[in-house]
């Protein structure tokens, strides 16, 4: 099945927040951002007399709590005094037109006392600026004396802007029943909860409705919330509909990104087997906790990537700096954990003279191996994928050798990247989903779930599950918007788990309805076995059309609506011991990437990538490919291209699309994907979740380029991302 939204997408009919026709009396809001990164707000005033000016809203106007921190309450909606990052909201301008709002905002007068900003996580760490507790995962006993090769180094990873093409936005309408909130959020229930908190009202007065997102990638998991809260606050004060859309410049300036990390490691092996790994992570959390503690935790879960390391210690600190609060981004800390171990293996390979892929293979996780946090693996397809990649590697190697032999000014290299990514929210509580299936008396069906469609195709997958259960065709079903009056207390659409949680919940609702319909057929017709297929129900020697059955059921007073619920079984995690079974299952795969470096210019080209991916039983190859290719692009972009830069004062330098570059069509390598995998009992229709894991194939891009440089000459280059043409050229000449 193709993505069910694609017809309206290609014809430009798909509606996003900014496309909704507004009511006549709508007002337009803009956020006034702090222009310093650290300090105290002394004064803020607008003394102008613009005829379109309606209100300037500041912290003291907030009727409820001025607090939106979701894990730790450390984040004000509007600064009451302290400024923690440049771009922090200090006021909201409300005006009769958007243009006027901009003009008024330019006239707002602000005074600060400015303090020195911290932008480096290590500096923050050294001055004791830590969010929450440090975390430590540990297993075995590290004995360095047992190792025959030991290396240690520092690794630095840059951040990454989400760059969802649709910027943040919200449109809030006052209604008789409270607030109707249209928001570009991955987390409707968080928006609902926070608006209630900020306005000092109960959650039932806030209805949040999400049609679709023009991309989210984690950037709209937590950070859509303040935008919606500010629009709702403006509605509360003006009693008029308010629209608040961030333009790109504001969006880049005000919102958090993927966390930059710095790390120190020491790794040791004994004849190819890694027997000791000690790593410390310094996460650059930005100015408040946001989701950073959870991101930090996943870094630890994935610190050994796909390798079995018996003696292991990882310590992680979430460091508070004066950058915008960094947040969820596809992979959620996993990529940073994985990059460090890959860098460590690369360095081990360099020192020992043993190729990295030999070390990778020798230490690959097998089914039955235990991760440092205690979960024993099963249903991993790693070794199968690896053996397929090995065959491809031989072809790559030959091509590279020949090319490098014949070329003076260009050099090719390659790298392999295995991935093992745990599926579930690591916060066990969040692993729940719900669905509401309504069958109308003519047989047509409306399906509401807690899943937010943002391009990942979750609605299509859930629809697939529903129609396979009812045996009806897709045109009988409408996927409703995600709405907090129909799907309540939902978890954010994140952690690659959305279609599992909401899909299983849908099937639960379907099963209830099928049981009711079966009972009807047994009661009325003494039906034996009942089968739902091809828009019909077959029982005994006869059949009814689905529509006839439903009409009949209605007349017989069968309840034709069902609420379904699902919570992932058997997962738990004990934070005291840092042990448990946090994941339902693992998604795995292996990729091999080839790249060419231009020795003269220091530029590179990503030639091709082959991916062997374990998607369980593939439930939609079109969507699965799309997820792999899109995630890969983001992974490669993070590793090589996307250069997020702040200066020492905490000012974003890559502050527009002219200076922050993401992959374009020419950047991407040729991609070949082969699916392997077996039925996964915990995945929807036997599949494995695919949203985040393939991003980490992009790590192969970094090492392919590095190896291409190395194939030209020995290099002594710090492990720092992104590996831009500047770093490449400087590396070649170091």
């Amino acid at each position, binding site marked *: 099945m*193709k993505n069910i939204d694609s017809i309206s997408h290609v014809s430009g009919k798909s509606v996003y927040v900014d496309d909704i026709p507004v009511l006549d009396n709508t007002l337009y809001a803009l956020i006034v951002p702090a222009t310093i990164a650290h300090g105290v707000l002394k004064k803020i005033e607008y003394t102008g007399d613009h005829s379109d000016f309606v209100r300037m809203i500041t912290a003291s106007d907030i009727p409820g709590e001025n607090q939106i921190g979701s894990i730790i309450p450390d984040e004000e909606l509007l600064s009451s005094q302290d400024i923690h990052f440049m771009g922090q909201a200090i006021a909201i301008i409300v005006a009769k037109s958007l243009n006027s709002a901009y003009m008024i905002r330019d006239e707002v007068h602000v005074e600060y006392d400015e303090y020195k900003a911290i932008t480096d996580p290590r500096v923050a760490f050294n001055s004791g600026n830590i969010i929450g507790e440090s975390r430590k995962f540990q297993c075995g006993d590290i004995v360095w004396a047992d190792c025959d090769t030991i290396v240690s180094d520092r690794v630095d990873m840059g951040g990454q802007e989400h760059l969802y*093409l*649709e910027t943040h936005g919200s449109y809030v309408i006052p209604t008789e029943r409270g607030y109707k909130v249209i928001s570009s959020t991955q987390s409707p229930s968080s928006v609902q909860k926070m608006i209630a908190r900020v306005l000092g009202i109960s959650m039932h007065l806030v209805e949040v409705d999400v049609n679709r997102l023009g991309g989210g990638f984690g950037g709209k998991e937590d950070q859509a919330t303040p935008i919606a809260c500010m629009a709702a606050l403006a509605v509360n004060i003006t009693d008029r509909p308010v629209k608040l859309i961030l333009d790109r410049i504001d969006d880049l300036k005000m919102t958090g990104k993927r966390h930059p990390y710095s790390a120190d490691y020491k790794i040791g092996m004994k004849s190819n087997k890694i027997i000791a790994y000690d790593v410390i992570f310094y996460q650059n959390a930005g100015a408040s906790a946001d989701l950073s503690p959870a991101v930090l935790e996943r870094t630890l879960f994935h610190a050994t990537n796909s390798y079995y390391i018996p003696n292991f210690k990882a310590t992680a600190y979430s460091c508070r700096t004066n950058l915008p609060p960094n947040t969820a981004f596809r992979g959620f800390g996993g990529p940073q954990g994985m990059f460090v171990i890959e860098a460590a293996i690369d360095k081990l390979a360099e020192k020992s003279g043993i190729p990295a892929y030999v070390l990778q293979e020798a230490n690959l996780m097998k089914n039955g191996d235990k991760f440092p946090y205690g979960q024993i693996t099963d249903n991993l397809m790693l070794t199968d994928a690896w053996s397929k990649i090995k065959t491809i590697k031989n072809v790559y190697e030959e091509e590279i050798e020949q090319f490098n032999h014949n070329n003076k000014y260009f050099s090719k290299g390659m790298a392999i990247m295995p991935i093992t990514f745990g599926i579930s929210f690591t916060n066990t509580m969040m692993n729940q989903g719900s669905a509401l299936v309504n069958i109308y008396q003519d047989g047509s069906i409306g399906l509401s779930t807690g899943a937010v469609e943002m391009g990942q195709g979750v609605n299509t997958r859930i629809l697939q599950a529903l129609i396979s259960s009812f045996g009806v065709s897709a045109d009988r079903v409408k996927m409703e918007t995600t709405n907090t009056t129909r799907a309540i207390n939902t978890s954010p659409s994140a952690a690659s788990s959305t279609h599992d949680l909401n899909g299983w919940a849908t099937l639960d609702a379907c099963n209830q309805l099928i049981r009711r319909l079966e009972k009807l057929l047994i009661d009325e017709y003494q039906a034996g076995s009942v089968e739902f297929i091809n828009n019909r129900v077959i029982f005994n020697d006869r059949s009814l059309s689905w529509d006839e059955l439903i009409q009949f059921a209605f007349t017989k007073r069968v309840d034709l609506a069902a609420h379904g619920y699902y919570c992932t079984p058997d997962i738990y995690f004990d934070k005291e011991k840092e042990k448990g079974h946090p994941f339902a299952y693992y998604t795995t795969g292996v990729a091999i990437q080839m790249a060419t470096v231009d020795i003269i210019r220091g530029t590179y080209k990503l030639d091709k990538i082959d991916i062997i991916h374990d998607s369980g039983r593939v439930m939609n190859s079109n969507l699965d490919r799309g997820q792999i290719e*899109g995630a890969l692009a983001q992974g490669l972009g993070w590793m090589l291209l996307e250069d997020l830069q702040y200066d020492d004062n905490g000012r974003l330098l890559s502050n527009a699309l002219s200076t922050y570059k993401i992959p374009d069509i020419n950047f991407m390598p040729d991609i070949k994907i082969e699916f392997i995998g077996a039925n996964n009992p915990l995945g929807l229709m036997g599949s494995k979740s695919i949203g985040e894991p393939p991003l980490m194939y992009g790590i192969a891009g970094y090492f392919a380029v590095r190896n291409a440089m190395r194939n030209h000459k020995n290099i002594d280059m710090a492990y720092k991302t992104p590996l*831009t*043409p500047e770093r490449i050229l400087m590396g070649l000449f170091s």
Partner: protein
Amino acid sequence: MTVEFILNKETITTDINPNIPLLDFIRDHQMLKGTKIGCREGDCGACTVLLGELKNNEVIYKTITSCLTPLGNVNGRHVVTIEGLSHPDNIIQLNMISTGATQCGFCTPGFVVSLTAAAINKQNPVESLDGNICRCTGYNSIKIASQLVFDQLQDTDNLLAKNIVPQYFANIPDRLGDIKFVKNTGTTIIGGGTDLYVQKQRVLLDKQLEFSTHNSDLRYIIPDKDSIRIGAGTTMSEFISNKHISELIDTEQLKLIASTPVRNIATIAGNLVNASPIGDFSVILLALNAKILITNSTKNREISLDEFFVSYKKINLQQDEMIIEIKIPKDTIKFNFEKVSKRMYLDIASVNSACAVYTENNIIRSIRISAGGVYEIPLLLRETAEYMIAKELNEKTFKEACSIAVKEIKPISDVRGSKEYKTLLLQQLIKAHLIQLEGQQ
């Protein structure tokens, strides 16, 4: 001023402020919401629309970024948005659906419009998408969809039959012919708007813009005896695809400049007047020893381009003056242009450089090397060139040239690279010139 044009099927006549971006007119005044806002600075392609211009009774369609195009610039033209292209049997749309070339959908109308232009102009589909950013798909499905479209168009010239363009396109040439074009005057000359409109749309609203360059008789490329004369309103695309220009220099590298929809509107004169230290056309034309013709409507003057750039963003041009023509001498030269940026396409260079050389028996008789991103203006490396005269075109000469070049420059560290990097990179690009020029022998 009254703006009259055709938007999809409809003739529009409007007196609203012609300075507003076409994008806002489409979305807010015509309520056509299929054209999206992704950046408002030409860098994402979500706002891409087709612009059709009548030339010899035929309408030439090109993609443009509607966020940077003032409404006044579409006077007398045909603007086509996704709503004006959509059709249930449109093979671009059908192939994009079948290959999964759309995920969140926000970028998708822009891609459909760009592929439409590629189909109309028989352009390489991937090249035509250099101005469209997609954050979701990783582009593979889009590449496959484009290839399928082009395979299916192999055996036909009839885009109407394939529903690439709808039936109403057939009488657009006649309808455009009926629109009388009225020239306006103003105090600020606007070319394509690709500099003026970046992050400055609101400031521009109250200005008196003169929309004449883009629409007027200043769009020509005419070879003379000794030079090629280029009208100031000539777009980058027209320059790159012109046969007289490509007889003089290899234009393949110029596709590294901006993107297709930006090149379709950005003018050469605009690039010079913008005077960015890293302007690609400034650097290219410096090496080509271009002259520029300037007028203040009472008198003309001609200066050499290397006298035009004075200091940072200061140019040899008075308030009341405008450029009307650029002249490139038709010397027999070997030419090479180098540009390195973080992303290969649609990115501003960290350093760029152009080199034009005339040799006899491999001895350099004349040479001009320019460099961008290493000084406050686009720089002609005079001393470097001087040193190279009468020397052999070889590694030794170029190596020594590098050591002189680094003394002529004053790069600063910024978001596009550290000064150490830029210094090294310029030397590497000079080496690259040699490799490329030797390859041309």
